[in-house]
């Protein structure tokens, strides 16, 4: 059995910070909420005794992705708080309700299997990377490379002729 209390606390935290991500107005706050969300998920993983995932979540998500977002927030002229209109809020609410309805129906109609408590060592978690998941694991290399190439190509496209072809941009 999982320890109930830490799980509930972490779940509540994750859900709250998740709401924060979509509800907060200032981009910086949103990034901080995402950071909190990621950290509470990491804590939840710890509670589920998935130490490796907790570490990965902290390192990659909190460490890298959120920082990346923060940098871009700084780069973009976001103009302070986001002005969200009522129709958009309504759209968000409608999506939330519709998605929840669909997925809740699905979840309610199925039972969960559960095995005994088991803690996986890093070695055990890593083993599939060199067995069943060998191909996907190796494919992440060209994927990351492609992402880098794409980002650089987009940047170069931007930089190469800064004044030409600006018909779509507004001063």
């Amino acid at each position, binding site marked *: 059995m999982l320890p109930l209390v830490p799980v509930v606390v972490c779940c509540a935290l994750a859900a709250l910070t998740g709401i924060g991500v979509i509800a907060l107005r200032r981009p910086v706050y949103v990034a901080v909420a995402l950071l909190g969300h990621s950290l509470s998920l990491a804590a939840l993983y710890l509670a589920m005794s998935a130490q490796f995932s907790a570490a990965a979540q902290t390192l990659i998500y909190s460490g890298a992705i959120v920082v990346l977002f923060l940098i871009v927030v700084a780069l973009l002229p976001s103009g302070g708080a986001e002005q969200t209109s009522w129709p958009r809020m309504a759209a968000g609410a409608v999506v939330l309700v519709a998605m929840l309805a*669909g997925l809740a129906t699905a979840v309610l109609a*199925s039972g969960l299997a559960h095995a005994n408590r088991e803690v996986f060592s890093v070695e055990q978690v890593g083993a599939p990377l060199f067995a069943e998941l060998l191909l996907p694991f190796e494919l992440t290399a060209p994927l990351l490379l492609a992402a880098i190439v794409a980002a650089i190509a987009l940047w170069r496209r931007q930089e190469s002729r800064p004044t030409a072809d600006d018909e779509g941009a507004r001063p």
Partner: protein
Amino acid sequence: MTDLLADLSWTSRAELILVGTMLALLALAPRLEKSTTATSLLGVFGALGAGACGLQVEGLPRLGMLVVAVGVVVAMLLLQVAELFDLRQRPEAAALVVVGGLGALVIVASRSLLEIAIGVELLSLSGATLVALGRGQRPLEAAFKYFLLSAVTFAMFLFGMALLFLANGSFGLDALNEVFGPGRGVALAGAALMVMGLAFKLALLPVHFGALDAYTAGPASLVGFVMLASKLGAAAGIAKIASASGASVQQLLLGAGLLTIGFGVVASFAQTELRRLLAYSAVAHAGFLAIAAGSPKLGMPTALFYVVCYGAAALLAFAALAGTGSAANDDQLPVARLGNGLGRARALALVLALASLAGVPPLPGFWAKLAVLMTAWKAWGPVPTALVALGGVIGVIYYLRPVPDLLAQSKQEGPRLSLGVALALALTAGLVLFLAFAPGWGYWLANN
């Protein structure tokens, strides 16, 4: 080392060759910037290598590799006239084309859901960036929208994959069958999410918007390839998931397919620009693909056959349009007065491509539609079959609308054809004609 090589499957070898080609293109990029021919040659060799590996395998991956090889070769040939914002970015574009081919190939050869996910990601990275590299602000806008929606749908795919894992504890496609019993709502929801995530690449209603933008505003020389690769990958992925899922996912695909056909056909009537017409009708074709891929029996071969027939014609159409637009308004070719300055070869190629896309017998588009009809008849019975048939032939009207104009103006002189464009036109037109007179062979290739 030799032992390792001997143990490698031919699919993996093809993937390795594509990765190697990409690395070579990137490593040599500073030198290749000056010589488009060298870039194209390098890419063509890589594609041919992958295609040669493809000849060695049996089954699905073979056709996938051949399609990818042809697509990459055509894209490389068109690189000379590619409407890039910065012409020095040709090596990067070539590398991204190879990445897109790799993505499609990974999906076609995949045995687990995770591989499909990685293939989809490769496809969307390369597709969005290739579109973004086009000239002007419109391609950038299109790429942004395309990628944003693709990210959303990809997240759905991942969530669906996770739900399936939660339901049965495995990522294997083979194990998918076991979980679709009664009460397995999570598994069904997961399958639906994954199918919709892939459907974005197929341009199926209601997830068709990004593709619509990309096909409209992207550079013509590269969009043909982006379209082919994503449809190939998505159709293969959806067919794999649908054939392993239960009836409800298949019915979902049927419904979405019929809606998509109706939408694409009706909306195409309003289009007055050729690029938009091609984009909207690509949506209609996605409907056929979905119906084929969602059929319980014969789904996979029919879908692949459709991709081959449709892809050949679409590649031909975009090859004919490659490099013709002016800098600012690439996609402003109105249907009326369209032939101006296209020249005879391009105009005739467009006529052939449009006729094939319209499903004029005996061109490949017709055989593809017939195959879908046969499959739909076996799987779904008379009413859907009749609807599909009607949707399939109504397209003749909007596809043939520009034809009198094109034929009339095919006499006029157009811009001189560069060698690459001429080769690409010859290759794709030859493919279309070959499939027209030997459809049985193409189907055999898709089926074995």
